[in-house]
């Protein structure tokens, strides 16, 4: 009896342990011509007029002919 209880316990523990290994599938459906990777935080930064101004100022300061 004790051995049977032990067996149930082991089976239960194995079941619980296996559930921990479950990985939620992340399916990304391909659509032609559409980028589905991670979003680049630079995209939001570049849209700001301050950043545009900074880059233009940098170009005029560093690369303009003297």
């Amino acid at each position, binding site marked *: 009896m004790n051995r049977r209880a032990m067996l149930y316990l082991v089976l239960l523990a194995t079941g619980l342990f296996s559930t921990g290994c479950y990985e939620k599938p992340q399916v990304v459906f391909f659509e032609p011509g559409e980028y589905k990777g991670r979003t680049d935080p630079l995209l939001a930064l570049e849209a700001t007029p301050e950043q545009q101004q900074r880059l*233009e100022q*940098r*170009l005029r300061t560093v690369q303009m002919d003297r």
Partner: protein
Amino acid sequence: MARMKFLCDAERCIECNACVVACKNENDVPWGVNRRRVITLRDGEPGEKSISVACMHCTDAPCAAVCPVDCFYTTADGIVLWSKDLCIGCGYCFYACPFGAPQFPQEEAFGVRGKMDKCTFCAGGPLPDNSDAEYAEYGSNRIAEGKLPLCAEMCATKALLGGDGDVIADIYRKRILKRGGRPQSWGWETAYPGG
């Protein structure tokens, strides 16, 4: 909105290769990959010309058009970037690019090439800006810091320009006016000298 472009003035480039070294150092580019190269025409002959070439960040990029997994994206100001997570190393972009910009770090049996690598206009990739992960995979992100590509910024003769295409066109137009003519690095006189 600005469109970021590179322009190399063939009259000013002295083939010092400093842009190549700056790029490799700034972005920790792996061995065997050159994101930027200096090409010399008529090497050692009178009329020798050199130009520095990298990804031209095409408006309608052929690399992006042929990519079977669509790993490319273009920023609002025209910088063509890609995700190494999505890249499968098929090499289609390498065949499509007229400038030979996309390169692969490995060459092994069964066509294993590794993930594609090319010039990022010093704008990193789709990872948190200036993070260690971004630097390891794509190199530095100078654009997020308000700076422009190092290759262009450190060019000693200011042959290589990189930034807003309109401003660069202005700089180049003024140079041509000062020189009093168009550069003869290409055109009829170059193809058929004296003809």
